[in-house]
């Protein structure tokens, strides 16, 4: 990038993300991160905080540095606010109702709120149902994160910190997958292709390949596309199962005694116990159907919903594992039994 040198020549310009305030989690260049709980939590918190603070502020003033990543990250805002609003719609007016109506409305409102909660939880958790089997079977971690160092335009003459960190995933884009992040660093004693080697071995392409990266990339891309499809469809279906689970009658027992007052251990403990019991009973009722169901469909619709979610997940994973872009084995390229002419 070209900077107006005249203005900045006597200033100490930082070309890395280490500002005075922020220096613990800084990166000098795009860096591959480990996909573990700590990293995921750290990235999640970072994105969540910025989605509610920095990015809207930049967007509202029309900053020239606002980008698509920030826009996408801000997608969390309507998701969370929308969930809270949906809960409020079904609950917040209840206090103005008479005692009987309040009671009746609260049952539905609580189920609705729980449904919103379960929707989010199951949608998020169910992604593992695709990611984990795919990773175990292919060695490809479709959710591998990396930190991207982004260079920005100065917002004004006094803006010296022109870097920002974005958290992406290597396989975030199937069109522009960050293959470079998967190469090893020889300076650290890593083999350049050691990650590709592992994947190649896992997928039966063989060991000690000269260019494992070239052989793995088509497979990697295929897995990314297929797992993305499986994750999209199955996670929303599991989210639907979450909502259906929340609408079962046994939850009403929990709603009667539910408390979040953890400083009252006895009541809180009892509440958790009843939550567990209601969860199990609700899951059973969802599967078996309500006792007062009149038609076959009413009785078994819960089963069908769970079956559809499970079916889509299994089909999605199987489709992902059915890799078609494997290169032919070297001994299959030329048939030794046939005469070949090389010009």
């Amino acid at each position: 990038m070209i900077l107006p040198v005249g203005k900045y020549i006597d200033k100490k310009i930082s070309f890395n993300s280490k500002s005075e305030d922020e220096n613990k989690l800084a990166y000098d260049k795009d860096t591959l991160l480990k996909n573990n709980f700590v990293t995921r939590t750290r990235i999640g918190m970072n994105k969540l905080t910025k989605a509610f603070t920095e990015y809207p502020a930049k967007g509202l003033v029309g900053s020239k540095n606002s980008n698509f990543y920030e826009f996408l990250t801000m997608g969390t805002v309507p998701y969370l606010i929308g969930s809270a609003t949906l809960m409020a719609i079904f609950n917040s007016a209840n206090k103005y109702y008479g005692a009987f109506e309040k009671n009746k409305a609260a049952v539905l409102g609580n189920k609705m709120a729980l449904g919103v909660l379960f929707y989010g939880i199951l949608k998020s958790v169910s992604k593992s149902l695709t990611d984990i089997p795919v990773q175990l079977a292919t060695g490809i971690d479709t959710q591998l994160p990396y930190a991207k160092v982004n260079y920005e335009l100065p917002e004004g003459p006094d803006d010296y910190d022109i870097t920002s960190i974005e958290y992406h995933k290597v396989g975030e884009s199937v069109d522009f997958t960050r293959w470079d992040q998967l190469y090893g660093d020889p300076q650290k004693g890593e083999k350049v292709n050691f990650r590709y080697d592992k994947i190649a071995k896992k997928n039966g392409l063989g060991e000690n390949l000269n260019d494992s990266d070239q052989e793995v990339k088509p497979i990697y891309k295929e897995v990314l596309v297929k797992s993305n499809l499986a994750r999209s469809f199955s996670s929303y279906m599991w989210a639907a199962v979450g909502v259906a689970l929340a609408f079962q009658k046994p939850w009403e027992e929990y709603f009667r005694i539910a408390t979040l007052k953890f400083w009252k251990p006895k009541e809180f403990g009892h509440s958790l116990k009843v939550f567990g019991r209601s969860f199990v009973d609700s899951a059973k009722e969802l599967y078996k159907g309500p006792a007062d169901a009149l038609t076959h469909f009413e009785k078994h619709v819960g089963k069908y919903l769970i079956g559809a979610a499970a079916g889509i997940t299994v089909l999605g994973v199987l489709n992902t594992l059915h890799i078609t872009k494997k290169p032919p084995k070297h001994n299959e390229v030329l048939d030794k039994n046939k005469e070949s002419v090389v010009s």
Partner: protein
Amino acid sequence: MRTNLIQSYLTNNSAVQQYNSDKIVKDFDVNKELANRTFIKPLPSNGKLVKKNLFYAPAELFKDMRYDMKALGHSIKGEANDHELGRLNDLGMKLGGLGIATYLYARKATPLTKIMEFVGLGSFFAAMDIWPKLALQLPAYLVHGFDIRQQYEDNYGRKKPVFLDHQFIPWDLYSDEEINKIGDRLRVPKDIPNRREFIQEKMRKIALQNNTMWMLTAGFATPIMSALICNALTAPIQKHQDGQINRQAEGLLVHFNDEIAKYDISERTTAFSKLLDDNLGKPVSGELFEQIHSNLSRGLDPVVATSLRTDLENMLPPADSFNFTNETLENVRNVLKEHFSTLPLSDEELSAIIPDNDSIRKAFTDRNLIKDGVDEFSDHSKIIQGLLKDKIAAFTSANPDNPNISGLNFRFRQLLHSNAHGVDSPLAKAFKTSPAAILNENVISSLKGISETLSNFNVKVDILDRYAYLKVAQAPETILANSWNDISEDLLKFFNFTDKEIARSRIDREAAGSILRQKIENIAADDKTYGEFVDNLSRKLSALFEKTSSLDVAGDDTVNSYTKTVTTAYDTAADSLRKANMHSAANALAGFPGQSVEASAKHIQLSFVNDRISGVKSSFYRLLNTVDMYRRIAKLNDRVPNVLDDKMPRVAKEELVEMCKLLLLDGHTSDYAEKFYALRSLDINPPENLSPEQLREFYSQIEVKDGKVINRHLGQRSADELAELSNDSGFFKKAMELMYGEEIHTDTNARIKNSAFYQEFLRYRDDVLNHLGYDDCFAKPHHLAGHYVDSSSEKRFLKMGCALDEMFNKLCKQKFNNRVWLKMFGGFGAGLLGVTVLSQFFMGKMKVPESVKENK
């Protein structure tokens, strides 16, 4: 893949020749570009801005669907791109939403709540789409003059928003002319340097600010907007559903025979025929009798089924009736032989113990016991016991040392007593080998006919039940329930309840009653308002009458008359049963011929519907009667009611009118049962030595102003000076007369006399008078010597209808709850919309560069 120009240059233009896109700009000249040294730049874009309007919408929708299907195919093969995967994520969200709606649809009980699940889903996605268009795109277009959500189609046919990524905006898709036009709308001076860049930056800034606003507001707006859409759509959908249910119900009776034809009763009749044919010529055992009864009585109510059993018992003698023949005697001897054969006795010994056939036959013949239809075998048993005892005694005396003697006696006792309660002893079993009833061809033919009659009857009843359920069942969203909701919803409008009055009335029935009374008094006092009110109510009652006329109007001869169809179905079945000598079942079904049908299943079928409608209509007729009485009181000058004559003291008149006004608003049947227990003034007789003027004053008429009685005596005395005047029996009758007996006001009469419900309303008043108006009405049936009591607590309850203060209390509760919710979220939604729209005026603020000054 498109060829890079640099590459083309390096390879001496060979690749350019290979590039064969028909989209490429036709006048592009590579040599000219190279000569101008401007070759290092991208090829001219083949993308285009997407023109969106309603005209293109269906085509765009179809195109998007086709794109999504292709994307799905590519994804399954692992060949999709980022854009396709993004589209499929949206598709997954809709699929999940559909899953939720389908599940909740199955869990909801009524058609409206079921359909609202899908409306909710649709409205949510609609809200997601509409909010940014309504609150951001449209205002931004009006204020700034360009579309902030403009989409473009790239070289690969992928549709994307132009301002999706602010680092990569395809500005080249906008011509200079378009940009300048937008600049003019943005009031960008024309003579600034780099005007296009400035306009672009301003547009970018505005779009970015709008996108950010979208993210910040969508979370609040989408659920609220979705809920408001659902709220607004509920009434029209309910109206549509109501029409559909009504048509569906009417169709059942209009096409009654077609509906019958849809049922397949052959399986049932065939199975029954097989049962009978398999048992042709066989005796009707208890088990077979139960099978026949069970088959015939399937679908019948227990009373008819019990009557059917009585008829069948006449046709097929009971299973415990047996024929006693020579074969039976032979069988008895064989059973005895078998019974004692368990003992180690020789054949000779056994022959000595078991009586021979001749002696058994003789003993039975002597006593005339060999006959048919025997259901009691004690005499038969005694004879066998006697014969056996004699034989065993003879054997014992002849063989005193035989070791089997004790065993013989033991087996003898076992022969007479069963080993379990309710089970026949071996001897009794031996007698019951030849059941008296035999299933012959005539009986089978008769039973088949009865089966067909009852199967057809069941089908008809099933259709009638469905019709009655759709119309009047005690369930939400039936025609009757919808009518109730429709009328009661409008009542608050007719009475012009304000928000404050609704808020107060919802607290309890007393508050509701007090406000309602004031309103009725005001309406009754004003000619114009009263006329409008009666017209409005009359219109609603006519609609209700029309909707239910096919159900409860006796003698209605139209094709969809429920009464007529029920009568025909029950009477036809009863006639067929009578022809088959099933009189008991026929009577249980349709009543005794020429007598009251009240104890029959037909009456239950009819009265269920009549009672449901009666309860609803009575509530609304009560309201009409109430406003009419208030009108009669408000207009005493027009005509003084007979009961308020000059023989009644004024204090009693005031008490009477006040009590009647209250009773019509809040009275229950119990108030009528206890004859309106009320504390009254003891001054019902004039004091002595009153002057004529004072006497006139004592019996003077009540005074009314603006619909309210100006009480001169009522309320003047404290409660301990008042008493229940139980000896004033006329007070109850006068109150009933004032409320229900007096002619309705001429204004009311003029406005409703041409209505369909007019006669029914007059009948209602008579019914209340006759079922609640006299002491006799409250006696239990048969408890009043010399009188027939036609009134029952059920009838009184149905005629009384809903107390008006309670009705309005509930209505106000519902209305209040809806309004609270609507105010809370409608207000918030409106505020959010306002803020979002106003924010446009603060967007795109930029310092305008100085104009280029012309050199002079």
